[in-house]
């Protein structure tokens, strides 16, 4: 452990040269902080602590949680498998209309999720551009299925991963790629053994962002996949459903979602930051 004295020194000396922080910055910062923290405090204060154990033991809650974790993790996997190559193309390859492609990638980011859900229906719905072929050729119907949930989550989470990985690839030194080539490595080998390992911290943070986004996904999911218990009703959808009937249940589900997401993020962060430093 570092001595406590040294820890305190750093921020002090940082503003020691320029004086105390101005109230014009401190005041809005405090407002922002309370805006972020107050809802969480509200959630904790209204939680049905006395009935918590028995409510948590409800198999419906666990099933919903399991579905949420399963779909969010699968969606993150899809993002990694599809988004990393897309990010590489944007960062390293000479592709025509690169700026246009990058703008396309950003669309789900600015699109309201509900609109995203409608758009997914027009593409993969039973009457959709692709959906009708999937149905008639393979008998595959995506809307209102668990696979549909994963598709909706992948759709909204993909931009986060692509942006993070592309950023990491841009900041990674491309001279390593050149060097690998002189040693006889093909571009694919170079990607696997040099480019990807060097961009790993960016890939990891992109995956965390994508996972968090997928776990919290609501609008696109409810529009494209509906809210069927056991198959498409993920935690956010369950919270929304419970709000209309049992407010305490809604708070409980919210708490579970909060604990799980924050817990996983903290765990992964710890693991990755130490992994990267080593």
């Amino acid at each position, binding site marked *: 452990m570092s001595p406590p004295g040294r820890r305190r020194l750093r921020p002090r000396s940082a503003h020691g040269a320029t004086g105390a922080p101005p109230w014009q910055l401190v005041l809005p910062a405090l407002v922002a902080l309370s805006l972020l923290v107050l809802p969480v405090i509200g959630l904790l204060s209204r939680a049905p602590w006395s009935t918590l154990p028995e409510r948590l033991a409800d198999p419906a809650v666990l099933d919903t949680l399991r579905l949420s974790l399963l779909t969010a993790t699968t969606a993150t996997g899809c993002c990694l498998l599809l988004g990393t190559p897309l990010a590489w193309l944007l960062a390293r390859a000479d592709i025509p209309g690169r700026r246009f492609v990058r703008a396309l990638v950003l669309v789900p980011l600015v699109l309201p999720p509900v609109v995203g859900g409608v758009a997914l229906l027009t593409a993969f719905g039973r009457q959709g551009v692709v959906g009708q072929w999937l149905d008639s050729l393979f008998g595959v119907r995506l809307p209102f299925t668990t696979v549909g949930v994963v598709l909706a989550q992948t759709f909204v989470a993909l931009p986060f991963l692509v942006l993070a990985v592309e950023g990491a690839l841009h900041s990674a030194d491309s001279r390593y790629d*050149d*060097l690998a080539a*002189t*040693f*006889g490595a*093909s571009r694919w080998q170079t990607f696997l053994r*040099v480019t990807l390992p*060097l961009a790993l911290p960016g890939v990891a943070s992109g995956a965390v962002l994508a996972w968090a986004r997928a776990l919290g996904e609501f609008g696109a999911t409810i529009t494209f996949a509906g809210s069927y218990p056991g198959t498409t009703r993920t935690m956010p959808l369950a919270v929304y459903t419970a709000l209309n009937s049992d407010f305490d249940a809604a708070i409980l589900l919210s708490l579970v979602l909060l604990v799980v997401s924050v817990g996983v993020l903290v765990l992964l962060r710890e693991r990755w930051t130490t992994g990267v430093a080593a």
Partner: protein
Amino acid sequence: MTTTGFTDGGLDAYLQAEQGGFALDSAIQADRGQVVAVLGPNAAGKSTALRVLAGLQPLTDGWVRLAGRTLEDPQTGVRVPAQHRRTGLVPQDSLLFPHLSVLDQVAFGPRHQGLTRALSRARAAVWLDRTGLDRLASRRPAELSGGQARRVAITRALAAEPQMLLLDEPLAALDVRAVVELRTFLHHHLRDHDGVTVLVTHDPVDAMVLADHLVVLDRGTVVQTGTPAAVARQPRSAHIAALVGLNMVRGRASGTTLHVADAEPAIRVITASPHEGEAFCTFAPTAVSLHPQRPVASPRNVWRGTVSGLTPHGDAVRVALDGRLPLLADVTPAAVAELGLRPGVEVWASVKATEVHVYAA
């Protein structure tokens, strides 16, 4: 000039390529087992030459032929990609893959020449043993000193068993002790390498010590080629003269008098042997004596100058003089004290005619 035995494993290259501000236009040739040093100031086009040889940047014209194979020739449309050139590149800042252990760094080349993981590691271990780095095998690049990293980078290139080894400023940016060790290391392992070696450096000492043949570049073009001894004896540009630590003057010779080019009023340099026409003359800084007053005795060449800088140079002090004829003079530390030499002091410099060498420009 050496004869080019490119069919017998040698290199025959004529490089024309774009680079910032000017064009590279340079011939580089070497026999198998030979070390060619490309010598020149910063931004002379040296690193571009290496990138082009490695296939990382295209030629605009010319050719690269290595070991009987045409690697690149824009006129016939041949361009072998970097991946298939069998070169071993040692980049200027070592550029060790940060995520690989020393063993896996060195195994990188063999691994991509089709050896299995186990076999490539075995070959890497043999090379690490040969270069005396075996005890570093499990280290990560972040755990190596600058000199160690450079030796690992060189071993990594050698382990690829390249037909052409390319070294970019292998001795730059290291502390003095590491440079001495690494120079010995390079001398030993470059001699054993049976392919071609192209070494890029701005340091004439490295070039003289390590190379069989020099190509002196300035602003993309070749100023001079030859053996280290020949280039050092008769430099053909002020820059190389400065690099090898000689005073050089260009002018028009008539008998034993050389009239310095573009000097008005005239400056004359008296030489030992007669010469006619355009000529260079050179003399070593050790041949220059400094005096507080104009010397009355025999020296034929006497000029006035102002001290502009003093730097230690071996046991002596190298004095830079500004004046109508800028000069370098090596004097003893005692003389510096005696003459009260410091920047701004005016002195007289003298050189005996017998110390001045003259040769055709």
